[in-house]
């Protein structure tokens, strides 16, 4: 382990910041064998790269377009061998306060070479950030859901999701094209994405934007129930008795 060079991935949306970090890593190379396996301009790009090029350590900025550093950390956990992640940040009051509290590693930009070297030497002893720890960091809702398929992380943009349905062990993500299996809790997803989805049933969240309308069905025994009709796919989902009020609520929004 100790003689194999440390494999690094640099993630930052600003090209000068990536270049600076590379220069500093070159300076460290004499003290510690390392190799930069790639550079990415966003969390999303980093995940794409890591699919084909594994790394031991990801040095990632926090504030980035497309996918920020904290969301990247969440998706990294879906990899079979998640790399260690150290955040680099110029200035983020809130994030840094939370990092201090929860002992999350970070480097402040401009980074000093000595600080960087110390951090690199610590890497073999570090573990990837746990999901529990990440939950405690202040973060916006994710822009993607991620699932593991054939040991790769597949990203599903949240705006493509039509519904989320809890089955026995998994949650089914339905998009216009296909289904994915997700290992998360429906309640937590509902909390995270709040207004985007509406609960139509104990086990099902539907994207508000995907609701085309509601239809009333009467069974042979005379029981009536509502079904929600969806945009983009030819499926209907039952609305539970407890959630029936949403039929009127959403119908009114459409009228208004």
């Amino acid at each position, binding site marked *: 382990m100790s003689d194999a060079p440390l494999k690094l991935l640099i993630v930052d949306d*600003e090209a000068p910041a990536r*270049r600076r970090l590379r220069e500093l890593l070159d300076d460290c190379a004499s003290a510690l064998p390392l190799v930069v396996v790639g550079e990415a301009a966003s969390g999303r790009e980093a995940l794409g790269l890591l699919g084909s090029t594994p790394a031991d350590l990801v040095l990632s900025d926090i504030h980035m377009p497309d996918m920020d550093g904290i969301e990247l950390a969440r998706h990294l956990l879906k990899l079979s061998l998640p790399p260690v992640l150290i955040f680099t940040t110029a*200035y983020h009051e809130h994030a840094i306060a939370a990092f201090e509290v929860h002992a999350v590693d970070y480097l402040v930009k*401009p980074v000093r070479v000595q600080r960087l070297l110390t951090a690199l030497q610590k890497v073999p002893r570090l573990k990837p950030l746990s999901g529990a720890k990440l939950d405690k960091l202040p973060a916006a809702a994710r822009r993607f859901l991620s699932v593991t398929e054939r040991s790769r992380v597949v990203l599903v943009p949240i705006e493509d999701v039509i519904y989320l349905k809890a089955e026995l062990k998994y949650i089914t993500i339905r998009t216009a094209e296909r289904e994915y299996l997700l290992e998360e809790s429906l309640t937590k997803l509902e909390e995270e994405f709040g207004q985007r989805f509406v609960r139509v049933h104990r086990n099902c969240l539907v994207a508000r934007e995907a609701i085309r309308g509601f239809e009333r069905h009467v069974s042979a025994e005379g029981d009536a129930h509502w079904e929600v009709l969806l945009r983009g796919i030819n499926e209907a989902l039952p609305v539970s008795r407890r959630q029936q009020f949403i039929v009127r609520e959403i119908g009114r929004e459409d009228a208004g």
Partner: protein
Amino acid sequence: MRTTVNQKPLPLQLPELRNLGTVLRILVAVNAFALLAVLAREQRWSAVPSAWLETAALLEPHLLLNLLLLYMLAPWLERLPYRIGVLCILTLVAVVTLTLNATFTKLGLDPFASDPPRHLAFALLSAGVLLFYFHLRAKALSPAISEARLQALQARIRPHFLFNSINAVLSLMRREPRRAETALEDLADLFRVLMRDNRQLAPLADEVELCRQYLDLEKLRLGERLVVEWHTENMPRDAMVPPLVLQPLLENAVYHGIEPSSAPGVIAINIFLRRGEVHAILRNPYQAAGNHHAGNKMAMDNIRERLALHFDAEASLESKMNRESYEVHIRMPYRPAVVAQSEHV
């Protein structure tokens, strides 16, 4: 006027007699005085409206003539020492009142039996009370002006920008030392303006130059993602404006419009003179996803406050959100720099 160590309290000054805000305040106040007088005089409530109308009919020619003369004499009056200025205004009011009174009586237009001493007393008292009010108002606002200077410093420049820029300059040090030099000089200029006394107005051309330097620094770190379009062909370079009236808005535009997207975005800046007013319109892309508004409002409130302190009702700041772009529109009166002042700049 633009020395940086001027920490003395602002000197006593007459109100800006050509300012719309001042004129409106005088009009409202004098008519309110008339209402008070009528209320005190009339026995019955029902008689008040018609009595007030009659009084106003007599009052308005006096008031408007006074305002017109003050407007014409304003540049001269405002240059006088405060006490002499006050004396001149009171004399003017007395002369106008007596002259108009005599004219109306001669023409037989005066509905009341003319009573010059009473009218003179009302006119002088009104003028005195108003001058006292404007004096108090200036006093109340002058700490606000020095406060605004502090706020201008605190609300400006996100630390995020400073540290990212220093990091970008560091990245140039080894390979492009000359570009690094320019960037550091820009940074120094930016902070020189941020840290000086920003109570006095400064030429628009200076503010625009500062904005260019700021955007150059942002371009250094954001590269192709930041596209800037300047439209300043009809810009009055000598217009005096509050310092840092545009730069913080550009900082918002970069932070909210450019940074959240990996695709290139355009910031358009359009500055022009129209009908004696300076207009500045800034437009940037609006990113619905992942936006953070907290800092935005603070900068806007700060600028709005400083515009009000300097120009009262004659300046405005409006913002509007379109589907994909965000636009800020600033309107200020055109006040060209006085040559004598800019000589020692």
